[in-house]
């Protein structure tokens, strides 16, 4: 059963006085099955982040629809969109987006507190996740006291703790060194293996090569996709590189 369906998505930015139009997305169609790990690749400005924002109902499309678990995201009002987001989506951002007024622990609790959960339930949920992500001993620290990799793992914990239907990751390795990146990607693969659906936007081939499927976006359209099949990470890495080379040189579709 597909958990996410994107149909005929189009996003046009019009400058303030209607003078110039910029098409960020035109006719994007794809669907994601429950339990999938999908990477979306594309160069800067290809519309990846716009797509992610629309899926998260942070932005409205000009045309087309997004269904998340059967719910039409465009039909949601601002306030119910926020609640829906809180209950069904988890986010991991490139720049972590942790609040510096909270400890790591409180940052992770934030969505649950907003949902009105009791402290007992929250701490019960946090324990296994913190252990899995290896952040149990930094929970009492403040974001500025820990490393980038730890911050990103904390952000991942915040995304996972609501047990969302879908985790959206926007360039999660973008601000990390290679070791932290590897650790995080390994964690994502683990989380995915335990049944969590993940969509990750990235332009790192390394990151994409840990996914189960890779979508390529170019000039606002889904241009191509690769399934992992039985490939290892290394084999997928090569396929992605080849595809990107072709995309860059414009060789494939003519």
């Amino acid at each position, binding site marked *: 059963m597909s958990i996410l369906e994107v149909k005929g998505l189009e996003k046009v930015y019009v400058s303030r006085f209607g003078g110039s139009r910029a098409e960020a997305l035109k006719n994007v169609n794809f669907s994601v099955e429950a339990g999938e790990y999908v990477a979306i690749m594309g160069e800067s400005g290809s519309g990846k982040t716009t797509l992610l924002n629309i899926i998260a109902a942070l932005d409205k499309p000009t045309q087309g629809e997004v269904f998340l678990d059967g719910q039409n995201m465009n039909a949601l009002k601002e*306030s119910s969109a926020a609640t829906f987001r*809180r209950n069904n989506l988890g986010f991991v951002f490139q720049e972590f987006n942790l*609040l*510096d*007024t909270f400890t790591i622990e*409180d940052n992770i609790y*934030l969505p649950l*507190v*907003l949902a009105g959960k009791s*402290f007992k339930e929250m701490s019960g949920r946090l324990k296994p996740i913190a252990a899995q992500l290896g952040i149990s001993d930094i929970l009492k620290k403040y974001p500025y006291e820990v490393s980038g990799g730890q911050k990103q793992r904390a952000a991942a914990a915040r995304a996972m703790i609501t047990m969302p239907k879908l985790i959206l990751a926007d360039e999660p390795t973008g601000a990390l060194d290679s070791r932290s990146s590897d650790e995080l990607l390994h964690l994502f693969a683990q989380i995915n293996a335990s049944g969590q659906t993940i969509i990750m936007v990235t332009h790192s081939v390394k990151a994409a090569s840990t996914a189960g499927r890779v979508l390529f976006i170019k000039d606002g359209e889904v241009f191509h996709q690769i399934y992992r099949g039985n490939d290892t990470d290394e084999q997928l890495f090569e396929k992605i590189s080849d595809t990107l080379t072709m995309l860059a040189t414009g060789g494939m579709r003519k």
Partner: protein
Amino acid sequence: MKAQLYPRLAVRGIKNNKRVFVPFILTCAGMVMMFYIIVYLAVSPALDGIIGAETLKQMFALGSWVIAVFSAVFLFYTHVFLIRRRKKEFGLYNILGMDKHNIAKVLLWETLFTAIVSVSAGLAAGIALSKFAELGMVNIMRGKVSFSFIVSPLAILRCVQIFGIIFVLLYLNSVRQIRFSSAITLLRSESAGEKPPKGNFFAGTLGLLLLTAAYIIAVKIKDPVSALAMFFVAVLMVIVGTYLVFISGSVFFCRLLKKNKSYYYKPNHFVSVSSMSYRMKRNGAGLASISILATMVLVIVSSTTCMYFGEESAVNARYPREINVYFNYDSPNSIPDLDTINNCLSENGIPAENTVYYRNASFYGIVRGSTVDLRTDRASASEASSSMRLFNIVSVDDINRALGTGETLAADEALVYTDECSLDVEELSIPQVGTFRIKKQLDRFIEGISGTLPTIILVVPDFTATVDAISHSFDFDEDFMFLIRLNYGFDTGRGVDGQTSLYRKMFLLVQEENVKESFGRYNGYSVSAREVEREDFYAVFGTLFYLGIILSIVFVLAAVLIIYYKQISEGYEDERRFEIMQKVGMTEREIRKSINSQLLTVFFLPLAFAVMHVSFAFPMIRKLLLLLSLNNSSLFAVTTGISAVAFAVFYAVVYKLTSSVYFKIVRGASQ
């Protein structure tokens, strides 16, 4: 071409940072205006005609220095904020190839423009308003008004000098700040890693202790003279205590809230408690300043308005009749009786109606149980402050005449009236004089006799015998006060001018050798007329009232600017937090609600503290007002209440206006 670059950059810098520059310039202008007005009044010839003009001018000169020092401190404080917001821009200039020297030039032009605009605007407003200020002043003093419009070159010069120095110092300070940081630190200064606050338990506790001690002093203090001495100590303790409590204590308090998990982890409290504790340390000083400024405004406004409006009752209390005289005697036997005096006055053509005549003897004593010890020098300091009383002996005949009562006393009986103290005994004995059985406590007494100290009035059947006995029981040398006095007051039924001329006549009369005999062999005297004294009261209280208003305006201006800067600096800080919270799934309404509750708490905390300070200061200030013969507590309660409510309303309006600026900044990020 190149010469114009710096001024152009400076103007652009000011324009681009309107949000921080405009309030700063307005405040500077406001301070210049107030300073000009007060210096203008200090040198204005319009006040020359008023009694005590010299004192007034001295008070204004003092007031001008208060404003100058306050302006300097305050403008420095806010200018730091201005610089902080500009550092990023200067960092960028630095990276683009301007050296520190060039930046200093831009800064010089900026400071120059700011100074010129604010000083000239302030002077213009000051000159425009100074005539009104003068009219108001003269009106308050009930003096004559002159309608010439004067610009005071001396006041202008003083303004330019003082504020010129302040701006030079501001400039040097900003250059110093820029010089000692590299381009990158400048660029990043605003997003530099912020440490979460560590509440300092010791400092917080010390602050609480200081506040408690100051409150205890304020509430416990009995007599006005020591109130005056302790007032400034208490004020200092409150100021330091407030700062400590706001900076450390509140962080500590928030931590306690955080520890209470079922309270902390609630949607309404979660975000606000954590940001409050995070902010409290850095903004604690700001909040404490607001709170102290608010307290000062409340104290000044309430006490000076009370003085001004209580003037009538104060004059009446001190001068119960239109003309009042008293004579001091060595012995109660030399005091003339009422008829002798009245005859003397009518012979000399002075009409006396509604006369009040009484004799009293006053001295200090320590009350121990039911015994009065006249050896006040033997008491310890703490005993003196708690049980020293001013005693007044009055005869029952005198009070019956003055109050229209029909009290009778047996030889060993006495009536008691207490003021600012109480006496719960059946008997009162004075060694070597006798023991009096207290027949009754009086609930009212002759106006003008009760003074400023805790007083016990002992009404005895035989004035002469009792006073004689007391004066012989103990050697009252010059270290011990013992006054035997005749008080005589009367109304004349004349207008103000008539009263004044009768007052002069009376004054000359008591000095005439042949008349002196009718008043007995006195060794000191005083003649006063209510109408003459009233003018003096108006001059002093009017000036205080006026200065109070001016200082309050200055303090309010300062408080508003602190609030405003706090709001916008927090707005810029919260921009990103707001964005993150929205992404994590907080609706705009939830964010607004949490921000509102946080702003509300943080904002009304200083007000709550101010009101608390003022209510504890109330008994102490009441004592101080007693020194000025203002014993109308209900008037003071009313003026305090009205000032507190008015200030709260004003504060709420400022809060509303500045928080909308805050929301605009915060929302700017997400849209």
